[in-house]
């Protein structure tokens, strides 16, 4: 596993097994081919996120994981080259906070 691949998701806290997801390339061409399945374009405020997805607050791309995300997980946004940690927002949904 390359350094970049380990940066897509780093385990945070959480109990119990996580649901796993098969990711497919859904046409996000902004990163090299082998990473495309980890990202998709956000379709705006009505776009519901799956439990394995979180929006990059900097560049508004949806980051996708092969596993359900939980608070404390660290994710990497390759399109804008930002690192972030998954947190639970005030409305109960998962969000990402940028790590400077």
């Amino acid at each position: 596993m390359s350094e970049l691949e380990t940066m897509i998701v780093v385990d945070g806290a959480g109990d119990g097994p996580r649901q796993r997801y098969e990711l497919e390339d859904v046409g996000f061409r902004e990163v090299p081919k082998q990473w495309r399945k980890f990202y998709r374009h956000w379709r705006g405020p009505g776009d519901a996120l799956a439990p394995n997805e979180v929006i990059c607050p900097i560049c508004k791309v949806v980051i996708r994981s092969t596993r359900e995300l939980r608070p404390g997980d660290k994710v990497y946004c390759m399109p804008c080259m930002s690192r972030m940690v998954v947190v639970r927002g005030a409305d109960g949904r998962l969000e990402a906070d940028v790590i400077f």
Partner: protein
Amino acid sequence: MSDFLSQYSIQRWLEACPQGYLDGTVYGYLPGQSEPEELLADEGMREQAISTTVQLVAGERAALAASSGLVNCAPDDASKLFLATQTLDEARHVEIFCQRLYDLGVKKEDLESTVARYANPNLVKFAEVLLAKVAAGDFIAGVVGQNIVLEGMAFSVFEMMEAGARQLNPKFAHTLTGTIADERRHVGFGENRIGSLIKQHPEKREEIEKMQEEMAYYMLAAFNDVFSNSPPPAAPSDAPEAEWHGVNLTAATPAQMEELLATTVIGEFKTRLNRIGLEYRQPKVPA
């Protein structure tokens, strides 16, 4: 995780950009794509497209001057390398939007007079505020002005324009898609690099917030000019719906478009500035 600065390399830029999403494009669009015939045949629509594209050329020329100027004031090699890639991105944007002017019928010898005729004076002042910081060698203020304020505005404007053009003008939409992908890297660098630097230089906050207030003033004045003083012609009644941030762009009035863009861009400014430890300053309402 490794130091974030180590990500900024020419190699990564090559893989993502020229060998990635720009591969196979010509001036940012796909071979064979062209401006819609209806647009080229309607003088009012064509002139509006020229005017809009001139604003993009003016903005990108400012970004090119700023990013190239910032290379020499960057405090580390990784930032210099990133800004060198950004300089090429901005130069490409200038070139592709100039190419669009030629595609719309502007003659090469008329380029400068066309830019001078249509460039919005408030957009020019917006750029001057930024370029004064760059000329003074102020890296932190320059990156906030360039990669957060200017790029933040461009990001929202390009997204809205791309949503509006997706059905009506796939060639222009494709050109914008590539620039949006570039802007993602630029805003990412701005926040990541300045987020850490502003903590080390809290004394810079006052000056930078004042610059942001001035730039936001001219930006809102430019939006006001574009949508209220010389509103674009209404879309044809049979135009396909185009939605952005919950608003139907095809049916929106110029006032609604101005409000949508202003609130979206300002909202993004507030969020981005807060994240890096700065406070958004509301400018006086433009006349």
